[in-house]
């Protein structure tokens, strides 16, 4: 052990202990900077999420995000509540078999203002496939300015027509290029969507 003198040595020793990486991945509490009420809220929402069978990490993650972004405590509380409520609504809309990614993507879509009916339509489209990709693309497009109803309708049509994940995932970049060139977002989407080959939905869509 090094010879460290006096109080500085003590401080250095403690600093050394604090600097050593966490034994476990999770480590010390990242929410330490949140106020007491905020932590209590996060804890209770995490508990409720678990009790309701919802993913709880997004709730915690949103709080961590708010702390990292130095957001005021009321904004963090509001954001955390929003995440929880939209996850709950996502589960109510998509059903108990929804995967974690579908739920978080659906929650984000709901937060972007996409109506729950659009989500239900995607789910009911008859495919067995995960709807995570269309949900993520839908939320992206709306965030870029495509009107919600137009985005929902277009994505649903493409999805029901058997458009693949790759085709859908290519839309945001293409739409963005057109927007940058001066097109209205809705027009850009409609034009680009036309280039994706789809077929009339048959009775059974092959995966």
């Amino acid at each position, binding site marked *: 052990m090094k010879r460290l003198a006096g109080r500085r040595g003590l401080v250095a020793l403690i600093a050394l202990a604090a600097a050593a990486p966490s034994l476990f991945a999770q480590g010390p509490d990242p929410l330490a900077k949140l106020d007491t009420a905020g932590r209590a809220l996060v804890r209770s929402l995490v*508990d409720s999420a678990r009790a309701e069978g919802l993913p709880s990490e*997004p709730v915690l993650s949103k709080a961590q995000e*708010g702390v990292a972004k130095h957001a005021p405590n009321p904004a963090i509380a509001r954001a955390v509540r929003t995440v929880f409520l939209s996850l709950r609504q996502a589960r109510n809309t998509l059903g108990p078999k929804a995967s974690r*990614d579908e739920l978080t993507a659906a929650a984000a879509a709901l937060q972007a203002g996409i109506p729950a009916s659009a989500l239900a339509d995607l789910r009911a489209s008859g495919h067995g496939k995960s709807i995570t990709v269309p949900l993520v693309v839908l939320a992206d497009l709306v*965030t870029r300015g495509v009107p919600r109803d137009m985005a929902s309708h277009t994505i649903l049509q493409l999805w029901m027509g058997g458009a693949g994940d790759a085709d859908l995932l290519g839309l*945001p970049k293409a739409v963005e290029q057109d927007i940058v060139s001066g097109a209205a977002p809705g027009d850009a989407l409609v034009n680009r969507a036309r280039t994706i080959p789809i077929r009339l939905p048959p009775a059974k869509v092959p995966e």
Partner: protein
Amino acid sequence: MTESERDPNVEWIAREARRPVESSAGVRARVMDAVRSTPLPVRPRRGMGWLTAPRPLALSPLGSTLLAAGLVGIGLLLGLAVTNRDGRLPTEQPTAVAATAQLPVHDTLQVHRFELEAPHASRVALVGDFNNWSLAATPMTRSADGTAWTVTVKLPAGRHVYAFVVDGAKGSKWVPDPAALRAPDDGFGTANSVVLIGQGSAT
């Protein structure tokens, strides 16, 4: 690592087992109830004789220095200098504590490269739900020609939300990834990006 340990089915079991379990607040409440009616724990006292008796092995150089300097309270000194519960010397602490905080490598992880063009930045960090939004966890490296910042990370399959924090002359800025899918408003006035790992054809 043996063949079995690399076996994808075993890895799948490990991955599933790593999922959090549902837990109620009941146990926590019961623990705190019990704790409140339990006497307050105290640091073990060995009596004054311990301090003055010669025990060169038990008292580390730091401990004896501090004791001599009279700068530290007895409780704290005991905490620092006494041998640990197993009777081993403090210097025998397991060195394993210095394990680096790496992402687990035996989950089904995919390698993903993040890149941002930011020629005037002094520092860029990748921050997202996969590193608890920690600014320190995933610093990015400047490319050789200085125009771009990159980092390669192993991420589990699924949807992840992230952004970059760019330090420049005017301070820190949160920026989304211009090449990636957009997440809706984060609730804090900055924009995030979404990456889908392992689904469809990813980003």
